[in-house]
Structure formats: C-alpha cells, structure tokens
C-alpha cells in the first residue's frame, strides 16, 4: 500500500526486460510498426497543414475532412504508378537502398519507452519492445546504418545530382553524429546508465544537491539540468535527419532532388519518404526519452497520483512527440537553408568543441558529488586543464589573427595588381577598353536606310 502512495512510482528497469512471452513481443512489434505507419501518414498531413497555416495558406483540404485523407490518396497514387528503372543504374543496389534506409529507422524505435509496467492480457510487461544496457548506442548505430541507404541511393542512380546529394548527406550525417553522440554524454553521466528505461527512471526525481549545508532540489528533467546538451542535440537532430535548415542533400535549388532524383514517384519513393519521417520521429522520441522525462507526465499533471501508472503515460508520450515534431515544422517554416561550408564549419568548429568543454564541466561537477572524493586533486586538475585550454586558445588566436591579416594584405595586393593589368590573374579577361566595344572609328549603321 505504501508503494502505491509513493510520490514517484518507480518505472521499469533493465531487469524487467527479456521476460515477455513471444506473443507479447509480437504484439508490441506490430503495434510499433502500425504506430509508425500511421504517424508517417498523419505526420505528412500535419506538416503540410501546419506549414501552410504558418505561410498563410490553407494546405491540403480536398480529400476527406480537413484534407485528412490526402496522405492516403498520395500513398495509393504512389502504389499505382509505374516503377521506372533507369537503364544504367546498379539494379540491385538501386532497389535495396530505400530498404536500407527504412529498416534501421524502424528498428531504432524498438528501444523507445512508451510507458511503465502495464498488464497486457494478464501479463505484467513494460510498454517498450526491448531494452539493452547500451540502448542509446543502438539508436546511434541504426542511424549510422541508415546513411548507407542515402549514399547508395545516390551512387546507384548514376546521376551527378544524386551522387552529389549522397556525398553531402554522408559527410553531413557522419559529422553531426559525432556531436550528437557527445551531447548524450552529459545524460549518461547524470543517469549512470545507457539503457533508455533507466534514463527515464532517473528523470523521475531530481534529488537534491547538498552544498554548504543547503539542500537545493534539482529539476528532474535533463532538459533543464543539461540545457547546453539539449540545445546541441536539438541542432544535431535537424542535421542528422536532413531537415531544414540542414537539408542540403536534397537541396532542390541546386541538386534537383538530391539523392532521390532518379526515384520516380513509385513505391520506392514512398519508402524513402517513410524512412525520412520515421527518422524524424526516432530522433524526436530519443529527445523525449533523454531530455523530457520520457513518458512521465509534466508538472501540473504529475500531481495526480494516477498520472504515471497504467496506460496514461502513453498519452503524455504521444503529446510530447507531437509537440517536438511541431517544432521541426516550425523550424522548417522559419529558417532558410544554410550553405554547405557553414554547415561543416558549424558542426566541427562550434558544436564539437562546445560539447567537449561542456562534458568536462559536467564531469567535474559530478566528480565533486562523489562522496569521498579528493577535492583538492579535482580542483588542481580542473585548474590545469582550464589554464591549458586558455593558453592554447590565446596562442592559436594570435596566430590565426596574424594569418588572417597576411591573407587580407595578399588579397588587397592582388586586387591592386589586377586593377592595373587584368590578365595577370591567369584568367583570360578581355580588356574592357578594346576598340570594337566603343568603336575607335565606328560607323553607325542605321536600320532601314537604303
């Protein structure tokens, strides 16, 4: 009875997994599959509808009430269209690539916790297909397999636009995955585990921080506690899923359709679209699990005792998923696409160093909270690292500044020279004062003067 009245009912932990009978696992797997299919259908509808409203237009409103059946109509159309196979493509890879994109996207969802322990047809089971001691790594691994789908789509199409799209995508996803993995580290340090169900459990109760005799209650969701980690994750999840403002792999302004150029609107194209949307849902669900308390109810609702038990948490999870997905749409409506060199420089020179510095800070704070830690050693180490970082930074800053000034002077000198003799740069520049432009002794030939 005491357990029922406890303020935070404990969620399932790793020990609760691996005990389901086969048919329960099958039910869960089928549920996730159907859930994702329907989510893609209505996600597409919602995206089109919401972005139209943001752009002051109606959006789809012909098929069904509020255009709800638009995605169904699109799916039927794609299923009935002729499946074109360009003559010179690598046939096997061209067919398999969309599948390589879709399957890992679905697999990654198997470790997302939807809710606590429930009674399903008389069997006590957690609302999550499975959990691993390294579940979050599994998501990252699946994302990295999904890249192959995009790269191979681009290569096997045998079209320059598609290859360029695939190349852009692989470089972008690999770079942003590093920043993404690093942004998880703070969560791991605080939760002490990589298993998704236990990370959700760790966010049930923030605990307190004893400092100088005061006990400060810590917020329970990591989005508050680890806000830099979350912000970096939010940026990398846009980059990882090739969404605006990082949708350069399919930048239609320069690459037609990017890696999917050669896929006509057939079922393969439908698979590609599905893979992209499921990826978006996966990264959203991971952000909810790691930073927004997973399926746990937000504050005003969580005062109700029944909020975090039974089937209710699935509703909270779903609401959070819709909200995060709406943010994706909001970003798409607000931001322009950035340039590719800006994307790379941002990923490598801003996100990763910031992330590393933040991890150092979090680790230091965690080290202070270890009971019998030698604080003098930690302080000394932290001071040495800090001073070393500043030293290196100042050194590089002065060197870079000097280099930048030299470069500017060189450019200035080159402009000077080019102004005097335009051909000096090696490019065949026609001098702008040739006689036939203005005519040294030009004869006007008026029309109609015979």
């Amino acid at each position, binding site marked *: 009875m005491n357990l029922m009245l406890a303020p935070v009912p404990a969620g399932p932990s790793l020990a609760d997994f691996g005990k389901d009978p086969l048919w329960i696992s099958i039910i869960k797997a089928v549920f996730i599959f159907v859930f994702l299919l329907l989510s893609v259908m209505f996600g597409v509808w919602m995206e089109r509808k919401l972005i139209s409203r943001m752009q002051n237009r109606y959006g789809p409103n012909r098929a069904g009430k509020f255009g709800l059946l638009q995605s169904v109509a699109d799916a039927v159309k794609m299923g009935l269209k002729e499946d074109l196979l360009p003559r010179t493509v*690598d046939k096997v890879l061209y067919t398999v690539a969309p599948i390589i994109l879709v399957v890992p996207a679905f697999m990654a969802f198997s470790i997302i916790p939807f809710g606590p322990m429930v009674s399903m047809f008389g069997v006590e089971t957690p609302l999550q297909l499975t959990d691993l001691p390294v579940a979050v790594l599994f998501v990252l691994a699946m994302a990295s397999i999904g890249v192959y789908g995009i790269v191979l789509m681009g*290569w096997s199409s045998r079209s320059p636009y598609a290859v360029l799209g695939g190349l852009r995508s692989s470089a972008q996803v690999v770079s942003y995955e590093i920043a993404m993995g690093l942004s998880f580290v703070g969560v791991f340090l605080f939760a002490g585990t990589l298993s998704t169900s236990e990370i959700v459990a760790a966010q049930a109760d923030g605990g307190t921080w004893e400092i100088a005799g005061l006990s400060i209650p810590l917020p329970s969701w990591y989005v508050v506690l680890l806000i830099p980690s979350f912000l970096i994750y939010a940026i990398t999840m846009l980059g990882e899923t090739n969404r605006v403002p990082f949708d350069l792999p399919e930048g239609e302004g320069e690459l037609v359709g990017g890696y999917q150029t050669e896929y006509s609107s057939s079922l393969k194209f439908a698979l590609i679209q599905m893979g992209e949307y499921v990826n978006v849902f996966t990264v959203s669900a991971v952000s909810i699990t790691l930073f927004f308390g997973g399926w746990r109810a937000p504050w005003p609702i969580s005062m109700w005792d029944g909020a975090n038990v039974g089937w209710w948490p699935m509703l909270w999870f779903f609401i959070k998923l819709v909200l995060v997905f709406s943010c994706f749409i909001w970003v798409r409506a607000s931001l322009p696409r950035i340039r590719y060199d800006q994307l790379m420089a941002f990923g490598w020179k801003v996100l990763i160093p910031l992330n590393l510095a933040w991890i150092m800070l979090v680790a230091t704070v965690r080290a202070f909270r270890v009971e019998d830690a030698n604080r003098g050693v930690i302080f000394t180490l932290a001071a040495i690292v800090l001073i070393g970082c500043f030293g290196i930074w100042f050194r590089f800053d002065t060197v870079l500044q000097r280099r930048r000034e030299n470069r500017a002077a060189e450019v200035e000198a080159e402009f000077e020279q080019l102004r005097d003799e335009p051909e000096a740069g090696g490019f065949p520049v026609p001098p702008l004062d040739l006689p036939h432009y203005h005519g040294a002794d030009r004869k006007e030939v008026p029309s109609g003067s015979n």
Partner: protein
Amino acid sequence: MAEVPSYLSPTGQEIVFLLLGAVAVGAALLVVTTRQLVHAALWLVVCFGALAGCYLVLTAEFVAWVQVLIYVGAVVALLLFGLMLTRAPIGRSADLDSGNRPVAALVALATAALLVTVVIDGFRTAYADLTPGRGAAKELGSSIFRNWVLPFEALSVLLLAALIGAIVLSRTDIRGR
C-alpha cells in the same frame, strides 16, 4: 576447472558464431576479389557487420554496437565518400589487379596461419562461460580505466598524433620552416 563441453555437440550460440565467422571470412575474400570498386567497400561493411554479430553472440554488446557505430557507420562511410568523390564507376573495372597479387596472397595466408596457430596453441582447452551482461558499458569501462589505463592512453596519444599528422599533411597553407 570447469568441465569443457565436447566440440562435437555445439550449442545454438556456437553454431551462430561459426556461421557469422564464415560470413565474415567470405565477405573479406569478396572485398579483395570483386571487380567492382564500390561493391568491395560494401562487402567490407558486411564483414564488419558479421564481426559485430560475433561480438553480440559473445555477449559483448557494447563492443558490438561500437563496432557498428565506428567501423560501419564512420570508417566505411568515409571510405565510400572518398571513393565517390574521386572515382566510383558502376560496373566492372579492369585495372583493379596489380602484379603483387601472388605475393599479397602469400603474405595473407602466412599471417592467417600464424594467427591461427597462436590462438589454437594458446587457448586450446580454454573455455569461458558466457554470462549475459558482462559486456555492458560499466564492466568494460571499469576494466579499461582500472587495469588497462596505460595502453588506453598510449593508443589515444597515437591516434591524436595520426590526426594532427593528417591535418598537417593535407593543409597547404602551413609552410615548413
């Protein structure tokens, strides 16, 4: 000393392990024999994947997913990136063989023979029971940072040196003094 089960009645796990090993070796052979450049990289993916499967069967989950993440997700992806940036023809290329083919085969066979003899010699009767959960991040982390700190740090410094070396080599605006 625990009882060593007979080789003649393999468990399901051992059969899966052997099959995955066969896949890894077969894929590795295809990497060097296929005539299609991009397919060679993809066979490398299959090889690394099978290796990750082997780790999984041995309950080393963390190592398995890191293998997928690093080797499949980053190393071969960048390899493919490099291939496609320079040349990645569809179909067979005729110029993939060099005159070193027999020598390379000889060296590979000799290395394989050496490794196999060493492993068989060293672990002929060794038998480790597989307990689930031994390969989780916690055990691995405490083992690396308690018992194997020095090799770990030495490897890190080596990788750092390689990283800086690559940057210095590839940048043209750093002049020699």
